[in-house]
């Protein structure tokens, strides 16, 4: 197993309050990691650190195999972003290639091809010329996932990907993520509130329980630990 990302003794705060400390975990290529934790437990702060938007207070994030933080494909938490914004699906997906461009100002045909492939992979090729304000919630998430795939070399980071979707669209989204993990070999890190689904699909669970206590292990280990009882019920 090749290591793709490692956090060692990570500490970070949000608004001056320490939300993460002494966090350790290692993610291997092909893993499907679910991050669980209550609101305010530091999930968003951890994501910002992983993406390199925020510098950790102490500790290290080590990327494996020549990957850089900008090579992580990121699907942000659902917002009303695309509502009323005049942009075609192609324009949005293509903007995922920006990190690859470095300082060169315009996209090449190689990047346009990449965007086309990502749209085809997610089954939204027929929406390419549509405006993103005409899309349904599920279609919008697919578009944003395609954008993330343009940025991703091997690792996708998904922040609550099914929030705001109806049950059918949510199930579709989960199937798609499973497929990307199993068929395409993408490493997945997903923030989720859906414990049952997480235990079902994930290969690893990271639970941010409190600022100085966390759990990292397989779903079986998690289900057997006393921490899970709070989330699962009994």
């Amino acid at each position, binding site marked *: 197993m090749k290591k793709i990302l490692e956090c060692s003794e990570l500490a970070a705060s949000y608004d001056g309050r320490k939300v993460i400390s002494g966090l350790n975990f290692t993610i291997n290529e092909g893993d499907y990691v679910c991050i669980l934790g209550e609101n305010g437990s530091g999930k968003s702060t951890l994501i910002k650190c992983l*993406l*390199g*938007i925020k510098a950790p207070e102490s500790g290290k994030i080590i990327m494996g195999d020549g990957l*850089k*933080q*900008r090579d*992580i494909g*990121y699907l*942000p938490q659902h917002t009303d*972003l695309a509502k009323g*914004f*005049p*942009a*075609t699906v192609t*324009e*949005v997906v*293509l*903007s*995922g290639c*920006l*990190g690859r*461009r470095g300082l060169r*100002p*315009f*996209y090449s045909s190689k990047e346009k091809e990449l965007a086309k492939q990502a749209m085809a992979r997610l089954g939204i090729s027929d929406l390419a*010329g*549509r*405006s993103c304000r*005409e899309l349904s919630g599920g279609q919008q998430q697919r578009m944003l996932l395609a*954008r993330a795939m343009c*940025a991703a070399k091997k690792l996708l980071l998904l922040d609550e990907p099914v929030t705001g979707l109806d049950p059918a669209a949510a199930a579709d989204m989960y199937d798609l993520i499973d497929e990307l993990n199993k068929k395409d070999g993408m490493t997945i890190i997903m923030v989720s509130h859906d414990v049952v689904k997480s235990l079902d699909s994930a290969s690893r669970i990271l639970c941010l329980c409190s600022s100085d206590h966390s759990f990292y292990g397989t779903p079986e280990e998690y289900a057997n630990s006393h921490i899970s009882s709070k989330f699962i019920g009994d």
Partner: protein
Amino acid sequence: MFDDLRIMFTPEFFGAILLPALIGGIAVTICSSLLGTTLVLKRYSMIGDGLSHIGYGALSVAAVMNMAPLKVALPVVVIAAFILLRLSESSKLSGDSAIALFSTTALAVGILVSSKAGLTNDVSHYMFGSILAMSKSDVILSVILSVVVILTYVFLYNRIFSVTFDENFAKATGVNASAYNMIFAVLTAVTVVLGMMMMGALLISSLIVIPTLIAMRVCKSFRGVVLTAGTVSVVSFLLGMFMSLLMNTAPGASIVIVNVVFFLLFSTIGTIRSRTGRS
């Protein structure tokens, strides 16, 4: 009426007054519509308005102190743009109330200083604009700065799109979003100051906001909005100027009215299209 027109197109009037005004005006209109797209979509529409009032204050103070107006107003407005964008990002004081606070303060200072010094005439130029009174050096400066704004915009187009659409994602792909916001603040400030001399402090924000609103009624893509907004703003400018010469109305106000007519027209087209299902 047509006698008036004939006088207007005498070589003397055309070459000395009308042509420079048209060149400077077209340059500034293109800039303001380009930047306007991002400002409107990021919900910063009022920043243009706020900056123009701050510019008015700075220009009044400069006029009273007998300093070159542009040299004072440009840096003041650039700094104000930084501060306003910063305030909109953090949230101690919400963006729109911060703008209201800054702009009315600057406006009050401007009016206070100029009324005390009895300079109301000069300063009302900045309030209502005086495109036909732009000096040759004003026009040259407008054109140079506009070219800089347009080139910067074209080269940063893809990044500007990404930062406008989703700042967090842009940051995650390694785009230095705060640097682009800074560059954007400077470009906006420069455009607002130039536009003020032409359209006046009261009307410049219409040049920034309305072309984008017009384009958004009918365009699906970001690129379409940018190109349509640019084209519509230039056409409205030329029609507005023509109307003002023909009917002897104030140029700035005429341009705004033409813009509003286009807005109504495009809104109707947009509505009809979505009714017939070809949205």
